[in-house]
């Protein structure tokens, strides 16, 4: 059983590694194209790395949800699924529950974590605001992946107003 801190250390190193690989906007031949690729100007590289991290998180979230016992997966409503993410999944990944869940009851959910563990080690406030998205991409993927296994297609984005608090926005994609 791996200690929880190992994930944090690994995640930090992954962010550093995947960022270092893409200093310029043009993707190299070895980098896989993600949905964010092809953006104009100097932000192409950044989008590429974010989508790579998000993609990795997606596979992890997918796999984690697949391993849950059958009875856990029998949700009655969409809101129950989101509550599950906020409680059980968040505890499994971050040893704490999400601090708040809000919804417009029309397929948009805002999950708020007031002290997001992957941001805690960075100084609080506004100093590293620009860096924060790199530390959220993987987790957005975990949420989207878990939802996918639970039968829900979604778009997950994250925003930070002031570290270490952040919000994850989940928008359900209806076909």
């Amino acid at each position, binding site marked *: *059983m*791996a*200690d*929880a*801190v*190992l*994930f944090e*250390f*690994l*995640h930090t*190193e*992954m962010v*550093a*590694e*995947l960022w270092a*690989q893409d200093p310029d906007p043009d993707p190299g031949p*070895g*980098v*896989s194209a993600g949905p964010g690729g092809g953006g104009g100007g100097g932000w192409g590289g950044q989008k590429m790395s974010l989508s*790579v991290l998000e993609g*990795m*998180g997606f*596979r*992890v979230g997918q*796999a*984690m949800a697949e*391993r849950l016992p059958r009875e856990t997966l029998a949700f009655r409503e969409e809101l129950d699924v989101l509550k599950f993410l906020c409680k*059980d999944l968040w*505890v*499994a*990944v971050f*040893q*704490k529950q999400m601090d708040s869940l809000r919804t417009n009851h029309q397929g948009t959910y805002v999950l708020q974590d007031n002290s997001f*563990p992957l941001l*805690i080690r960075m100084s609080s406030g506004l100093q590293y605001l620009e860096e924060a998205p790199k530390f959220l991409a*993987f987790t957005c993927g975990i949420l989207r992946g878990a939802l996918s296994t639970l039968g829900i297609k979604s778009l997950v984005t994250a925003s930070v107003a002031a570290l270490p608090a952040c919000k994850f926005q989940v928008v359900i994609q209806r076909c």
Partner: protein
Amino acid sequence: MSRQTNRGTESKKMSSELFTLTYGALVTQLCKDYENDEDVNKQLDKMGYNIGVRLIEDFLARSNVGRCHDFRETADVIAKVAFKMYLGITPGITNWSPAGDEFSLILENNPLVDFVELPDNHSSLIYSNLLCGVLRGALEMVQMAVEAKFVQDTLKGDGVTEIRMRFIRRIEDNLPAGEE
């Protein structure tokens, strides 16, 4: 960071799967980004090293072990305290060299490789090479230059996973690497 009370074994189990799954996603991504296995191995080692130099602080803070007086003590601490704390396993220590500067860690099961199979076109990949980097980085921070390498791997069909640890020298000065 305050420590949450244990919410039961299922939560811990998912937590441990999280690391294994994340590691797997990382190796998969590196295999896409780098053209050959050797480069992936080097990258894993380097990332492991970066993790190790920080992990040692976490380890020393939580384990309360004092300074090791020789390499044998170090081996015991690595196997019985560190591996237990972080990966929940206690590797065996065997095959000491006559000079006492080399030993093997025997892992009957390696948590990193749960659910993993190596495809045929990655026969030179050292899947768990991150561990070697972690060991090297962590020990460097406590003034020991060591070499760690896999000599057996269950992923490659061996019966056990074996990491060979070799003591190179004591690091005397406290200057950060790269400064003269």
